[in-house]
């Protein structure tokens, strides 16, 4: 079971107790450095992800926002080596820091991009689990939920007997608000929300440290979406995993993420605490994006959104990829690509020439940071009964 470079895994049969409360909360658990991903080779290659740096803190929720084709899913898939052909990782490193062993000895960091198949097998699902958007495609349509849990636990927890595997699968379903009877169901017999809950239960089965949530609720109705996100965040508080939450819906991230990173045309453009990003964006694109969501309260007024449309990755404009749509574009924006760099005196980063050198940022992009971040309390989740009718 012990593989070099990987911390000792949770012993078989460990109940899902709040034993892994993040005592080292905020320390990096997943560090993406200079990641580059191309689709295709040579001169025709499309740079889907270009030179991205992103750090996920232990027990934190990092939101990754961007429009379709901005490379957010590609970034996450490449980082955990699930990228499919014709995607090619052309550079960078992804450092995974396992949790320290129980005897206090620090665990060795591993580079996922350099790891071999065996090392990856040990990390995937046990340490880094993923929840995909389409649960109907991700679940096996011809076997029951129970059989899929059983296969998973039998493979990764060979010490468990058949009965304890079943018990554990039942516990996991209860954790996400379903009854253990659902183990006998096939995916098609369940509603979309329940399928997604089953997916989350499966992802949690081996008590991972990192959850990749790739548009986990996009296909669901708003009520189900909120139920599931509340549950996920409650589980995060109890189990202490870190989450990389990918979605196109920035308004959702403002409510549920600790930090938000914004991607545009394959590059990370801004990263900030959620409240700061929402109240005081520094990037013109973020500013525009925030003004694309009509408000639910107050006076109705005409909003203009962002002019133009996202660029074609095969034919990116020179300089900053956003400059053709940017109302504050300067001559420099048309020539040089801005790098994601920290802003002086704040815990945030932005890739924009307006905040560099002698340039003066417009007042809209200089709003003061909110002083206190909103307290995040775990909603009380009643997991005693299956809620879906």
């Amino acid at each position: 079971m012990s593989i070099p470079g990987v911390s000792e895994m949770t012993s078989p049969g460990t109940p899902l107790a709040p034993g892994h409360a993040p005592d080292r909360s905020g320390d990096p658990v997943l560090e993406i450095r200079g990641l580059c991903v191309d689709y295709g080779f040579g001169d025709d290659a499309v740079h889907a992800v270009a030179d991205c740096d992103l750090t996920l803190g232990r027990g934190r929720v990092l939101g990754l926002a961007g429009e379709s084709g901005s490379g957010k899913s590609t970034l996450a898939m490449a980082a955990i080596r699930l990228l499919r052909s014709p995607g090619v990782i052309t550079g960078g490193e992804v450092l995974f820091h396992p949790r320290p062993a129980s005897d206090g000895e620090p665990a060795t960091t591993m580079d996922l991009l350099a790891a071999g198949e065996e090392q990856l097998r040990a990390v995937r699902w046990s340490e880094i689990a993923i929840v995909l958007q389409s649960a109907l495609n991700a679940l096996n349509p011809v076997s029951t939920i129970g059989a899929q849990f059983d296969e998973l636990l039998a493979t990764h927890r060979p010490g468990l007997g058949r009965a304890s595997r079943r018990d554990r699968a039942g516990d996991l379903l209860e954790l996400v608000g379903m009854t253990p009877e659902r183990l006998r169901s096939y995916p098609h017999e369940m509603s979309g929300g329940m399928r997604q809950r089953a997916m989350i239960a499966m992802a949690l089965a081996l008590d991972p440290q990192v959850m990749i949530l790739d548009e986990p609720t996009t296909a669901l109705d708003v009520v189900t979406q909120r139920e599931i996100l509340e549950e996920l965040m409650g589980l995060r508080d109890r189990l202490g995993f870190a989450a990389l939450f990918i979605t196109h819906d920035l308004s959702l991230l403002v409510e549920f993420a600790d930090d938000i990173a914004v991607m545009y045309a394959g590059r990370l453009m801004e990263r900030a605490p959620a409240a700061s990003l929402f109240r005081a964006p520094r990037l013109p694109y973020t500013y525009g994006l925030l003004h694309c969501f009509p408000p639910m309260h107050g006076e109705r007024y005409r909003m203009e959104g962002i002019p133009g449309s996202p660029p074609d990755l095969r034919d990116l404009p020179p300089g900053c990829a956003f400059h053709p749509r940017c109302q504050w574009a300067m001559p420099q924006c048309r020539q040089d690509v801005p790098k994601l760099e920290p802003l002086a005196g704040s815990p945030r980063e932005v890739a924009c020439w307006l905040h560099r050198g002698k340039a003066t940022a417009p007042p809209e992009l200089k709003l003061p940071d909110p002083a206190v971040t909103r307290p995040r309390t775990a909603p009380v989740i009643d997991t005693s009964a299956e809620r879906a009718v």
Partner: protein
Amino acid sequence: MNTLALVPNVGAETPVLEGRGLTKSYWVKRNTGLLARRSRLHAVDDISVQLMAGAVTAVVGESGSGKTTVARLLARIVKPDTGDVLLDGQPVAAARSRKFAAQVQMVFQDPFASLNPVHRVRHHLARPLQIHHIADGDVDEAVLQLLHRVALDPPVNFADKFPYELSGGQRQRVAIARALAVRPRVLLADEPVSMLDVSIRLGVLNLLADLRDRERLAILYVTHDIASARYLADTIVVMYAGQLVEAAPSVSLTDSPAHPYTQLLLSAAPDPERRERPQLAARGAPPSLLAPPPGCRFHPRCPHVMEICKRMAPPTVTVSTGHAAACWLHVDSTNGVVDGVGVTPTTSPSPQREAEVQRPP
């Protein structure tokens, strides 16, 4: 069964397009072999909507609530089991005639699927012009005019493009231009922006708003996104499990929702302005339309459910001017008089209201 139209009275003006008591059910096959049987799926149940000239009416609901079926019934693509569609107050013949199509046009959800990939933009716009004998003299000029109307400028650049050369927003604009080609007075837009990127959705919504204001089009906007309905629509109707539950001017509906289901939808919608996490007003999922619950269809999920909700379908109650809801909470139980002050301004019920409500066991 309530037969009242759940529509705010806009005045004496005749609606351009009106649906009256539209009901549609589908027969679906369940199980196979010896157990096979056909069951009736109640997709849309006794729905009335009025589309006024120069106004946007939004239909909001979750998936499966029947909102797309309503749009299709109004477009005469789907034949209702019972109920009528009226154009300018006159019943429309059962068959979908060219005359009707010239007045009522649809815009579909997926602009990647609704345009023919082997034809240029020009072809998509010229066909309806030729079929309906509009602009017989100069079709090319009319095509450019159409492109200009949907703000695809300069039009000459777009006329000869294929759909794959356009972005999602541009494609949806072409689809809208195609619908406008026959000079309709009603546009039925079924989730026109849900497949588009966030940053270009507002552009298409603003285009619909301009068509309403400049050309006095009557527009039906079907959506699951209540925030965008509030932004664009003059009137919002909320559907649940095939029925209308609430109808009101859009700001009135979102600021003071009267029906518990509308309150639930609003509490679940993403809202970055919120200071704290909302408490969901109810949980669970919509009922199966094969065997909808008796009484009010929302009662199994309703936090304010009363005995009567389980037995009888609620009547339509006017809670304030132009604001109607189908809910027993707004009916005075002793004499059946409409309780005009029962609108709960927030998503949580007033203490008084809560006291008179019986909790489910």
